[in-house]
C-alpha cells in the first residue's frame, strides 16, 4: 500500500484511538518499518488528540501528590499478572497428600530395591571371597601336613643316620649297573635295617629290587623296596649277624632265593 493511501485510509486514527483490530495494528507497524517518515504523521495525530482532550484549566497540583502517595512504588516482584496465577487447587488437598505419599513410597521402594541389589552383590562377593580363602586354607593345611610329615620323616632319617650305634654300609654297583649306589644303616644290637637308594635305575614292570643280608655265608631276605626318587630312608626287615648286604632284581614281591646273575649292588659290613 502506498504511504499516501495508507494515511488516508483512517487506520492510523483507529490505531491511535485504540479501536484498531490487531491486523490493523500490525499493518501500521509494518508500514512504519517500510516508511519511517510515517512516525511524524502518527506523532502529529497523537498530539492533536492529546491537545483536544487536555483541559484549559491545569490539573490540580495536589492531585499528583495524592495519586503518587496511593501508588506502591516498592520494586515489583514481577510485572506479570501475579494475581492471575492459579494456585495449586486447595480443594484437592487430600489428593495432593495421596500423591505425595505415593511418590514417597515409590521413591522408598526404588531405594530399597537398589539397596537389596547392592547388598546381594556384596554378599556374593563376600561368599566368593570366603570360598576362595577356604580353598586356600585347605591347600595350605595340606601343604603344612605334608611338610610336617616330611619334616618328621627327615627327623627320623636324621636320627637313623646320626645314631652312633648304627653301622653305615655302602653298597656299590656291579655289572648290570656299575654306577649304582645305595647305603644301608644297620644296628647290630637292635638289628634294625634302613636302606637309602643313592642311584639305581627304576625297576622294570613286573620286577622289584630285593635286599639281601649275607648271614654266615647264606643270603637272608631283608625285604623288597622301591627305588623311586624322594622315597628317602626305607625301613627294611631286621637282620642279625650280617656280614654283607646285596641287592638283586627279582620278580615283584621278591624271591625266596636271590638271582645271582641279577645282582646290582653289594657291600660288606
Amino acid at each position, binding site marked *: 500500500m502506498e504511504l499516501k493511501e495508507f494515511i488516508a485510509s483512517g487506520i492510523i486514527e483507529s490505531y491511535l484511538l485504540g*479501536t484498531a483490530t490487531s491486523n490493523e495494528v500490525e499493518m501500521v507497524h509494518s508500514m512504519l518499518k517500510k516508511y519511517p517518515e510515517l512516525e511524524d504523521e502518527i506523532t502529529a495525530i497523537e498530539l*492533536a488528540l492529546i491537545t483536544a482532550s*487536555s*483541559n484549559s484549566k491545569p490539573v490540580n497540583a495536589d492531585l*499528583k501528590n495524592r495519586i503518587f502517595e496511593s501508588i506502591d512504588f516498592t520494586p515489583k516482584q514481577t510485572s506479570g499478572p501475579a494475581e492471575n496465577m492459579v494456585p495449586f487447587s486447595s480443594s484437592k488437598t487430600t489428593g495432593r497428600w495421596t500423591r505425595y505419599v505415593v511418590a514417597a513410597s515409590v521413591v522408598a521402594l526404588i531405594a530399597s530395591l537398589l539397596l537389596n541389589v547392592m547388598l546381594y552383590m556384596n554378599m556374593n562377593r563376600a561368599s566368593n571371597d570366603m570360598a576362595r580363602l577356604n580353598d586356600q586354607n585347605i591347600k595350605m593345611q595340606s601343604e603344612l601336613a605334608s611338610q610336617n610329615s616330611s619334616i618328621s620323616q627327615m627327623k627320623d632319617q636324621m636320627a637313623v643316620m646320626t645314631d652312633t650305634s648304627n653301622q653305615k654300609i655302602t653298597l656299590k654297583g656291579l655289572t648290570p649297573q656299575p654306577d649304582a649306589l645305595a647305603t644301608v644303616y644297620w644296628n647290630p644290637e637292635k638289628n634294625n635295617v634302613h636302606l637309602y637308594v643313592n642311584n639305581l635305575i627304576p625297576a622294570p614292570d613286573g620286577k622289584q629290587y630285593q635286599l639281601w643280608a649275607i648271614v654266615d655265608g647264606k643270603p637272608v631276605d631283608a625285604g623288597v623296596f622301591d627305588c623311586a626318587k624322594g622315597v628317602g630312608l626305607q625301613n627294611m626287615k631286621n637282620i642279625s649277624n650280617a656280614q654283607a648286604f646285596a641287592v638283586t632284581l627279582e620278580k615283584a614281591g621278591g624271591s625266596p632265593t636271590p638271582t645271582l646273575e641279577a645282582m646290582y649292588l653289594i657291600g660288606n659290613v
Partner: protein
Amino acid sequence: MIHSIRQGDQQAFSYLYDKYSNALLGVINTYTESQEEAEDVLQTCFVKIWNNFGQYSEDKGRLYTWMLNIARNSAIDYTRSKGSKNNKKNQSIDGNMYELNKNYNHSENYDHIGLNTILQKLKEEHQEIIKLAYFEGFTHEEVSKQLNMPLGTVKTKIRQAILNLRELIK
C-alpha cells in the same frame, strides 16, 4: 522512558504523569459529573497504569493509546458502580445500550469543566465525532451506527476533524 518505568523508575513515571494526566483527565471528565469524581477516577487510572505497566508492549500500539484505554475503562467502571448504587432505574437496561446511552448522555455534560477551547473551535459535527471516537472509544462501525452515517463517511470525518485539530494547534 518506557524502559525506565518498567525498571520501576518513579522519576520516569512522574514525567509520564506530567505529560499525559491532563489529556486523560479530559477524557475521564466526559464520563463524570464533577471534577472531584474525575480526579478520583484519574487516581484509579494511574494506579492501574503503574501496576500493569509490565503488560504494556510497543507491539500492541502507542503508550498513550494504551493509557487512554485504561482511562476509559476506569471511567466506565466508575460510572457502572455509581449507576448500580444510585440509579437503580437504569439497571434493567442491559449491556451495550445502557453503556452507550449513558456515555452519550455524559457527553452533554461538559459544562462542569469548561470544554477544551481548541475542541470548541471545531465544527459541531466534528466535535461530535471526536467525542464519540476519542472520548467514548467507539469503533468506526459503532460511530456509524450511532450517527446513522455510512462507514466511509465516518472515517473521512474523523480524519478531517483531526486534520482541523492539527491546523488549530499550529
